[in-house]
């Protein structure tokens, strides 16, 4: 399969405690044919650890897109977002975060979109068409 490149997207970080979800999401990303590095963190705390140590080597690239679950042990999605806002990372502004959750609770959607001003709230499961929507919104094709 011919791999294509999304402008500005080199690494995706999947933050989810459910390994089946991570497995499926990775498959969907591969199936979409986009050439991108995929990293997995099993909770918010692991995601923060990854972010703090990323960017120093090619093996741990800084993520351009984070898919974030809500319910996770140790540090859930909301707690992660609180900590993330405190991070001093010059690349932070280039990173997009999309909520990816099984919750269809209106309060969760409101919290993500209004309180944390995330660009997207995606209802699981991730599909190639939902993925295209994320790419379109977070990495628009710019005319040179």
């Amino acid at each position: 399969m011919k791999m294509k490149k999304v402008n500005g997207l080199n690494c995706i970080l999947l933050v989810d405690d459910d390994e089946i979800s991570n497995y499926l999401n990775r498959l969907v990303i591969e199936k979409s044919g986009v050439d991108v590095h995929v990293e997995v963190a099993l909770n918010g705390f692991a995601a923060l650890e990854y972010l703090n140590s990323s960017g120093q080597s090619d093996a741990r690239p800084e993520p351009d897109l984070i898919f974030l679950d809500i319910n996770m042990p140790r540090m859930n999605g909301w707690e992660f977002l609180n900590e993330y806002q405190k991070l001093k990372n010059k690349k932070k502004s280039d990173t997009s975060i999309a909520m990816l959750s099984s919750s269809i609770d209106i309060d969760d959607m409101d919290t993500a979109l209004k309180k944390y001003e995330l660009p997207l709230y995606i209802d699981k499961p991730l599909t190639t068409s939902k993925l295209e929507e994320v790419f379109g919104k977070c990495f628009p094709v710019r005319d040179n």
Partner: protein
Amino acid sequence: MNEKPYNVDFRLSAEAMPKAFVLTDQNGSITFTNGQAEKLFLCKRNELIGKNIQTFISEKYHLIFSSFFSHIFNDKDVIPNTHTQRLFISKCNGKEVPVKIELNPLRSRKNSMVLIKIIETDEEWKANHPLHWIVESAPNSFILVDYSGQIVMVNKQTERLFGYTRGELIGKHMDILIPERLRAYHKKASREFYTNAQVRQMGVGRDLFGVKKDKTEVPVEIGLNPVKNNGAYYVLASIIDITERKKIEDELRLYTSRLENKNSELEQFTYIASHDLREPLNSIISLIELFIENKSQELGTDALHQLAYINDSVSRMRNLVTGLSDYARLGKNAEIERVDFNKVVEEVISDLKKIVADSKAKITVEELAVIPAMQIEIRLLFQNLISNALKYKSPNRDPEIKISAQKVKGGWQFAVSDNGIGIPYDQKDKIFILFQRLHGRNEYGGIGLGLAHCKKIIDLHDGKIWVESELNRGSIFYFFIPINN
């Protein structure tokens, strides 16, 4: 002079009479008197017996009295208890007071006598005055207290409430009715009351108690009224026993907290349904799809069929879970605003225009209302009712749907009628229950959510929804939305 030897029974009954009376001979000479008469005239029996009754009538009424007396005596047709005269008597201390006198001639073969009843009109006025018996029969306890805190007057309810008799209370300090631990507070509060006397509720926001004769405490509510009479200040306390109310309040508090617990349990359940249960279902669906995609070449027809069934079942389960949480979330964060029902229905029909066109449906909308309601929920309500009318159409004719509204007592009643397949009479109430379906899944799709949603939406508006239907002829769904002023 001594009384005539009346027998013992007569004497005892005479003493038990609540009214003052005397007996005289036909000349007016007193031959008998009861204790009440002694009290009234303020002199002893032996000072009365033998004297002429005229002696005790104020001088200016002598003439009136004697003509009254002789008239009554000479008239053979006189009816007992009907001859009364208002006049003044002169008491033994010289004081003159207004009375009502009632004369009853008693005739026997041996002699004739007159029974004279004397009623102090002040007493009579008090006993018959509406205010007096209003106070006496009031459900509140009334206590009149003077400036020093002494009890001046109490009513019947006070005796009942505190278990004391009137005699035990009048003249006592009112502290006798206040639990010891509250006396200091009461003293301070009453000083403040006298410096700024006005009608008020006592101890607003705090629990007040009275103490009964048997030392038990009773929760009370007290209203205070300053009263001025003949230059003296009094306070009239009106006291209500709130034992029952307290009990009910306690019970209510308990029920409320139980309900709150149940409610938060339900909310948790809803969240679990909308998140935790959906996640594994989503994974199963995705994995089955992947499996079929990758392995379809290697699988036999039977295996593929079975996988398709698994997929259907899991998908249905996901829809049920989603439906359940949709149902639970309905009305959450909803706000009441002015809703133009005409506009809502117009938008809903516009959303459904493809189905409307495909089914060749004719929809008539009459003038609807603009009333306070939950906008999004009302929209969902019409969406469900109109979609149902389109979905359950008769195979023999094009759907005709009519939407109307009418002002009724206390609110608005709306109707959505169709000419569809109708609902069997015995199923009429079942249709509003969550996940209840009247048809097989292969006949009509859906999970049995729409009308349950409608019912909940109307419940959220404190309204009512019902259906009238005739099988194979059509249904009319009615709902009522109350308007609170």
